[in-house]
């Protein structure tokens, strides 16, 4: 279940990366379709990142002397990562529920108190989860895979912007 939870969080996170990357670039009033596309695009690009991690992990496992032990180590790292990422995600999801209340004041305060500060600390949370996770089973392989995951999590927005600058997305 741990890989499934990590995949789910990665998909949600990358969808919102897609949203943030698209935000502030379209000045129309009705942007529902625009943001829907941005969310889907982010989630799909996130699947590429997941695929990269998955393929590399599979190669490492296949070439390992003790695939079972290595898988357990990776699961231990993933489980510890979740203890950091799940609370962060849950707070955000609850805030989205609160934001559904059609009040200017309530919606504004969700931004000032949660969405803004949480966007600012996201890189710190990503790093904290990675460090906390890798401490559970430190080895060259777990560290290398964790570094790869962190780079992908923090680099996805930049990758989308790069695609935009090349005219590949709009």
């Amino acid at each position, binding site marked *: 279940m741990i890989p499934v939870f990590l995949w789910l969080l990665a998909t949600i996170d990358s969808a919102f990366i897609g949203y943030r990357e698209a935000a502030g670039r379209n000045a129309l009033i009705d942007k529902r379709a625009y943001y829907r596309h941005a969310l889907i695009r982010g989630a799909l690009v996130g699947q590429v990142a997941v695929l990269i991690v998955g393929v590399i992990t599979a190669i490492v496992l296949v070439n390992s002397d003790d695939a079972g032990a290595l898988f357990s180590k990776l699961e231990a790292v993933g489980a510890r990562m979740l203890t950091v990422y799940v609370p962060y995600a849950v707070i955000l999801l609850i805030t989205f529920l609160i934001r559904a209340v059609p009040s200017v004041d309530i919606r504004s305060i969700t931004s*000032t108190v949660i969405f803004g500060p949480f*966007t600012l600390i996201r890189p710190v949370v990503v790093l904290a989860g990675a460090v906390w996770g890798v401490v559970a089973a430190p080895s060259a392989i777990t560290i290398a895979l964790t570094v790869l995951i962190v780079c992908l999590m923090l680099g996805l927005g930049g990758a989308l912007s790069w695609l935009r600058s090349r005219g590949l997305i709009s």
Partner: protein
Amino acid sequence: MSLSTITRHGPEISDAIVSFDPITLQRKPVKKADVLVQFKELRNHEAVRIVEQMPEQDGVLDPAAVDKILITSHCEMQRMSEEFQHGKRVAELLKPILNALRDGGVKNPIRIVDIGCGTGFVIRWLAASGSLGDDVKLMGVDFNVALLNEAQRLATIENLRCKFEVANAFRLDEPATVFISTGILHHFRDEDLSYLLQQHCRAETCAFVHFDFHSSPMAPLGSWLFHAVRMREPLAKHDGVLSAVRAHKSRYLLDVTRRAAPEFVSAIYGTRLWRMPIPRVFHSLVGIRPKYHEAFLRNMGTRIASLGKIE
């Protein structure tokens, strides 16, 4: 953008890189060196770096490049306005005013003019929401042709019933019934602020609602945080933070307004949140002719206590 932006003073970059003749509204060339000297004297090295990157032609800032930066910045500012529900906030304050004017027998149509509307987010939002009624005409005015062309382009795409005009808001052929603005007041200091407010005193004008950053000890830091995470354009980041730093204090704004526009009953709304001493992102300066004041208060109901009011 460094955190030190919150300690800056002086003009915003967007004030310094464009200039218009107040009579003819023609754009005047701006020498890049003059802008750089201005910010160097203020020791605003961040602004110097940003202006240095701007293209020039024969020492004059390239108007097309400047306009492109301004349009991008306005687009990013709109994102922030949307996040903070600004369109709805404006509508919630305008509706009780408009109903008071209707009850008081104001002639149709009611003309709402957004001063310094930029790319016209508020006017376009109000037009798209259709929440103010069919007897309302929405218009945005600004001195910058490029921003207004962009506003008109966006309004046309979405088939919105509003118009935009390069004009002095106080010299329109069809005068405003209600003036509105967002983030404009802090650009005007001392006598200029007073003069701006004096110009509201004309027979056809029944009310005004001016939104600006709510000055509070937390505002510069909060503004820095949001501009750091939400903006990309360096000018937008710099000016956004400086706007919060330069925002007028509520009491000062009210005192100036009462002296400059004594024909209106003025008050500041949006000074606290839910009756608690928590500052808001925006406060609003509301002025209304005495004839409509009671009806306006009645229409506002309990919302006044929730918004907080200085009078």
